[in-house]
């Protein structure tokens, strides 16, 4: 059985990396800051996968993004997922040829499912990660696109079932309410997954420390725990978290 995964997500916008709190961004630092405080070459072995998202609210420069991704992942020999504002085939191709093992799609899932079908056909399901941002409402969950700005009418449960039909490879579920709060994952959302859902689930939104990551991976329905909390894991935060997960019996890959 595949090992559980620890995923680290970087939020990038116009030359710098950000912390998100309920989808409001705080600039943390540039590549220099990242290198000083994360030293990816040495801590890359603490994570199973690196995700880099372009969360720009302004027009994006794909080439600059790709160059940055290449630099960040330079001595990392693990899967790399890239995304943020993918709306065309050409953009997807550029990301793939620049090192993306997987593409992260979000708004396109709702606005341009035809593109998603094409990408699945050409690159394979395993290459497509469906990123879904949601908020809790009274007794259900609502889906948001366009960086959390636009609420969809389709409730989350139905949306996830539709995504299964689109043959995406994985789900990246991100709770806007919990995002950046360090209050832990919204585990209740797991009930919204289609019965016998065969898609691997990457959980995101709210993980501030190793205890949250453990709580996530201890759930049988969660295959990967992601955190984008750029402050909380500086220095040796990721290696320590991995040790914590291993010490508590989570089946993680070893090397």
């Amino acid at each position, binding site marked *: *059985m*595949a*090992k*559980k*995964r620890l995923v680290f997500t970087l939020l990038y916008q116009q030359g710098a990396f950000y912390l998100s709190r309920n989808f409001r961004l705080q600039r943390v630092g540039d590549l220099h800051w990242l290198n000083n405080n994360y030293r990816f070459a040495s801590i*890359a*072995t603490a994570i*199973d996968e690196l995700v880099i998202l372009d969360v720009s609210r302004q027009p994006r420069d794909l080439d600059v993004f790709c160059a940055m991704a*290449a630099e960040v992942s*330079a*001595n990392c*020999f*693990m*899967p*790399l997922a890239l995304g943020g504002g993918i709306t065309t085939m050409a953009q997807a191709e550029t990301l*793939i*040829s*620049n*090192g*993306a*093992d*997987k593409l992260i799609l979000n708004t396109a899932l709702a606005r341009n499912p035809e593109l998603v079908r094409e990408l699945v*056909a*050409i*690159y*394979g*399901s*395993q*290459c497509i990660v469906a990123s879904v941002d949601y908020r809790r409402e009274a007794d259900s969950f609502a889906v948001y696109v366009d960086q959390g700005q636009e609420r969809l009418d389709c409730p989350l449960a139905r949306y996830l079932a539709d995504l299964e039909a689109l043959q995406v*490879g*994985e789900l990246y579920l991100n709770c806007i309410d919990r995002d950046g709060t360090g209050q832990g994952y919204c585990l209740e959302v797991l009930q919204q997954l289609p019965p*016998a859902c*065969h*898609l*691997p689930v990457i959980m995101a939104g709210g993980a501030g420390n190793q205890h949250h990551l453990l709580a996530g991976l201890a759930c*049988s329905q969660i*295959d*990967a725990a992601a955190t984008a909390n750029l402050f909380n894991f500086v220095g040796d935060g990721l290696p320590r978290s991995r040790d914590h997960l291993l010490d508590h019996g989570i089946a*993680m*890959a*070893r*090397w």
Partner: protein
Amino acid sequence: MAVEVAIVDYGAGNLRSVRQALIHLGVHVTVQGDPDRLRGFSHLVLPGVGSFRRAMELIRSRGLDQLLAERVAQGVPLLGICLGMQLLAARSSEDGETQGLGLIAGEVDRFAFDPVATGLKIPHVGFDAVTPVAGSRLFSGFAQQVDFYFTHSFRLRCGAIEPVAATAWHGESYVAAVEQGVLAGTQFHPEKSQANGLKLLANFLERF
């Protein structure tokens, strides 16, 4: 002869990571898609992402199928990665029936287990344990179970024991790696498998 690796570029897939890994190991790497220029290399690597059918169409259209068979016959080591390994087999049912390169006796089909019954997922994505066969050159120096990164919905099964270098289990048993003479292949991505992957690539370069 000094180690000179060529990554076979047939227009499908992310060559960058494989190239980075090999450079990291300190060897000279060239990316080459022209059959006429694929000569003089000490090792060849065949990567692959996407569908079997499309990949074979691209390979055949460039005459790379013949080229690879020739090189292998001449004793040039060839490592197929992921789809690249599957292409070495006789046939695959992915996206319609397609003949492979036929360099390894084996067949590629979709995982046949019932996801609902087993609770396991398809595609098989993530790090998973691989059991090397005793005496394997690819896995020289590894422990009895090693974790590598997989991402696939289709898997190889071999009729004979001979080409199998490692097995794995995901709802059913399947071939995780092959080695036969100068041929080698891994279903998993060594270039995505952290230190384990780098070590395996080094084994390929040193022992093939």
